[in-house]
């Protein structure tokens, strides 16, 4: 069935990245009830193995190369022109590493309390699905992975979640599925139309992107079919309401993974299947996206401010943060796009950590209500300190990872979407407002009866938290290695957009001594950006 073609490297590392957790999940599911200690062990092995491979991947990734690496391509369903086509580039690389990192931590750090076996099985399956979505370079393969992740996540929420878990899980499933409904049709249409240009039917992303040339109007329709699915996944206002419920009701592991990597499927999709596949359409529609993004930033922040449920607050903060990423994506400058990709990682780390901490609070107090928590810093200073650092990173304090991404996004966006950026920057103020306010209410003050013996951070929890903190600081101080790997892919993307549109990326520089130069670069260019934006 699988007519193998020789990939660049012998060992199909990418396929392994998907299969190892998948097989692990299968094993866990098949383990006998009589050996309750085994599942965790197996799950851990599988996830750590995946982590090891993803790190190896990062290590042997060719920094300068803008194309796809470690490509492996095999014919899968010949009749439909579908091939098992995987590849990594600067955009997906770190998302994969993040996926590899989050799951072992979650598996170690969080105790499901009941039915550990299925829990771990679903978790590993989820990892496989997420990996697949990030790796696949074939529309069909991407779609099936994009779609399959719903199932484990659905069961995780519905099976191990909180009070309204079934409602939340169902909402999550249906909402996302509705989005993908349009995507599936658009995807098939893309292939059908592309086959006219190519002369043969293929679902291969690269071949379509290179070979097919969509008429403007067609491309726009197709793009929107895709974009709806991603907009739901990101999520963008107004299709975001599944997120607060899902996040709030999901078990900690679910929330961490959801915020950490699954939301990125949306933004990643916008990059890979929006900008890359439909450059013209995505550029044409940028005012819409920029506006939605900015609305999301402000709206999410405001909503977060007024939440009474700590987890819900973090969820809404996610809406705001993801808004930044979308803003960066549709600003079409190297800085904003690189910042966007970087921010995907950063948001994954900091918000993931936030959910982890909120989960720990719930473990201890069995409440998420801000009103019922107070004075924790007095009784658990180390825990509070950890929370503080993560919170500051989420606020975007320089020196921590959150800042670098946000700043790059805004700097880049300012060149082409000046006024959107000005408004978006307000989100930075609001972020401080809602997080600090929540922090004050939860951690400051004198602890009352219920909170006065709030247990301090345990060693195990600390160990789980440590990688997060490490990344938060490291990525804040020395993001260069990451950026260096991201940039080539981004440049290629922008070049592609420039090919298909009259867009020219503004590259502000000033040659001292030559007059007038600054004028153009400094003022005219962004001004144009505005006009395009308004028009």
């Amino acid at each position: 069935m699988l007519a193998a073609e020789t990939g660049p490297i012998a060992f199909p590392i990418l396929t392994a990245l998907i299969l190892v957790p998948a097989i692990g999940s299968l094993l866990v599911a098949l383990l006998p009830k009589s050996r309750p200690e085994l599942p965790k062990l197996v799950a851990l092995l599988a996830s750590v193995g995946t982590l090891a491979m993803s790190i190896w991947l990062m290590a042997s990734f060719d920094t300068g190369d803008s194309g796809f690496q470690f490509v492996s391509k095999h014919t899968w369903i010949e009749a439909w022109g579908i091939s098992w086509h995987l590849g990594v580039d600067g955009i997906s690389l770190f998302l994969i590493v993040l996926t590899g990192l989050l799951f072992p931590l979650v598996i170690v750090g969080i105790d499901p309390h009941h039915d550990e076996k299925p829990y771990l099985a679903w978790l590993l399956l989820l990892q496989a699905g997420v990996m697949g979505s990030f790796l696949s370079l074939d529309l069909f393969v991407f779609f099936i992975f994009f779609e399959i992740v719903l199932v484990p996540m659905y069961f995780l929420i519905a099976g191990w979640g909180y009070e309204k878990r079934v409602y939340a899980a169902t909402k999550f499933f249906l909402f996302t599925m509705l989005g993908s409904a349009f995507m599936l049709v658009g995807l098939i249409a893309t292939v059908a139309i592309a086959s006219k240009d190519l002369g043969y039917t293929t679902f291969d992303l690269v071949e379509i992107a290179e070979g097919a040339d969509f008429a403007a109007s067609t491309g726009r329709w197709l793009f929107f079919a895709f974009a709806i699915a991603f907009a739901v996944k990101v999520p963008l206002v107004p299709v975001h309401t599944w997120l607060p419920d899902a996040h709030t009701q999901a078990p900690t592991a679910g929330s961490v993974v959801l915020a950490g990597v699954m939301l990125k499927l949306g933004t990643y999709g916008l990059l890979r299947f929006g900008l890359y596949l439909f450059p013209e359409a995505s550029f044409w529609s940028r005012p819409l996206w920029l506006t939605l993004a900015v609305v999301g930033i402000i709206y999410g922040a405001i909503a977060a401010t007024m939440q009474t449920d700590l987890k819900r607050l973090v969820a809404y903060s996610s809406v705001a943060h993801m808004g930044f990423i979308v803003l960066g994506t549709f600003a079409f400058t190297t800085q904003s796009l690189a910042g966007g990709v970087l921010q995907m990682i950063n948001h994954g780390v900091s918000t993931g950590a936030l959910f982890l901490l909120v989960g720990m609070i719930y473990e201890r107090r069995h409440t998420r209500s801000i009103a019922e928590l107070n004075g924790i810093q007095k009784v658990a200073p180390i825990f509070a300190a950890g929370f503080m650092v993560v919170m500051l990173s989420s606020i975007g304090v320089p020196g921590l990872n959150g800042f670098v991404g946000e700043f790059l996004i805004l700097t880049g966006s300012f060149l082409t979407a000046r006024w959107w950026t000005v408004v978006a920057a307000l989100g930075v103020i609001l972020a401080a407002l809602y997080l600090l306010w929540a922090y004050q209410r939860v951690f400051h003050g004198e602890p009352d009866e219920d909170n006065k013996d709030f247990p301090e951070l345990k060693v195990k929890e600390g160990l789980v938290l440590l990688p997060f903190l490490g990344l938060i600081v490291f990525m804040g101080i020395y993001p260069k290695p990451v950026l260096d790997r991201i940039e080539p892919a981004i440049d290629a993307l922008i070049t592609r957009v420039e090919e298909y549109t009259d867009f020219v990326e503004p590259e502000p520089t000033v040659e001292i001594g030559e007059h007038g130069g600054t004028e153009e670069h400094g003022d005219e260019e962004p001004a144009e950006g505005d006009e395009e934006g308004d028009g």
Partner: protein
Amino acid sequence: MLQQLDTFVGPEIGWFALSPMLTLLGGTLVLMLLGALTPKWPKGLYALATATIAGAAGVLAMVQWDDITDNGTTTLVGGAIAYDTLSMFLTITICIGVILVALVSDEYLRGTPNDGPEVYALYLVAAIGGIVMASANDLIVLFLGLETLSLALYVLAASNRRSSESAESGIKYFVLGGFASAFFLYGIALVYGATGTTNISEMVSALRGGVDPFGNEALALAGIALLIVGLGFKVAAVPFHVWTPDVYQGAPTPVTSFMASVGKAAAFAAMLRVLVIGLPFYRDDWRPIIWGLALVTLVVGSSLAIVQSNVKRMLAYSSISHAGFILVGVEAAAHGAGEADPGPGMPAVVLYLILYAVLVIGSFAIVTVVARNSGGDTSLDAFKGLARRRPMLALAFTVFLLAQAGVPFTSGFIAKFGVIQAAVEVDSYAIAIIAMVVAVIAAFMYLRIMVTMWTADPADGAQPIVVPVSIGVAIVAAVAFTLVVGVVPGWLIDAADTVTAYAR
């Protein structure tokens, strides 16, 4: 002119080509005779025999598949039967259906007076009827096949004499079925009037010349309308679906699965035969109707499914919405009807049929098992906490439900993908999008069942569930098929693609 009797020569009968049907027929007779003459057979032997017979027929069909791919298609017995991969594909589908249903029925019938050869004989005969429908090249033959299948189903539906619901479903099915087939017959008559023949091939050639636009046009059109009514009834397309929920719920569960698999497959095959193959020159007339039927079927089926509280009934409505999906495929096929390359419509339809057949039998098999232990209760409550009582059973049901919802890595996704792709390739974007959106509504119902199984706690006093071997085998086989096809569907797709080369 008069034909001289002494010079009369009967048509050439391709015995080998008919062997699947003959095998089934012979099997039926043997089963009935031996069954009647010998005392009660030991446990499960009837089912085994039935499965063997059907299996043999299926194998023969595969053999003929080769023959067809080598020597091309033709028509048999004076053009009454089409000998092409379409019929073979459906023959195989139906045989698989019979095998699985037989396995499921065994335990179900055990201990009831029905635990004799008759039920199985009826399965086999119904299968013959279905195969005839699928391969008929003559409207009369098709009608006879349809009646054979229907009558068998009427009886089977009413076969559980201790259940008033079974009886009710039987009578309802019978009255409405008779009503519908009367329309169908009248439609045949009118088409006959317009084209001067009931033979599909001749019909096509007669129409290719083009009946004069004024007169027979009207007659033919009226006929087509009534034909669509008859077929629409069989495939349970809204508004001709009204019987489905009641009958599916009332009939003995294995029979329900038989209706939903074999019945639907045969009916859709007949639809392809009559409309796509037989009436391509009227495609612009009937395609909009199919479009409309698909739309209402999808919407009504899915949205009514989510408010049900009885799993059997839910599955009934879900089968209606699946019919809607298949109609989308038929609509796609309509675009290319009569062309040298009819396009992806027909393959998509037959692919959907075989995949759905297995799915639905598997689902109902699980319902059978659960009902066995809940005193026949098939309401949602009976499924509470199934995951606690029998995790693997719950897992299997989950697989089937997810597949029906069209989740990737299951055959259900391949099926849906096929029809949607077919629709999109002929630019029927609207119906494709509607279908996908409606699928979301339907998904809600599947989720409801899953939630009940996985998150609810078993009703107190729920005794452990015993899964009989035969049913277990059927379920495992179905699950395996569902997943395997979900991952490596290529071979099946290739097979389905050949049906476009039907006998003309």
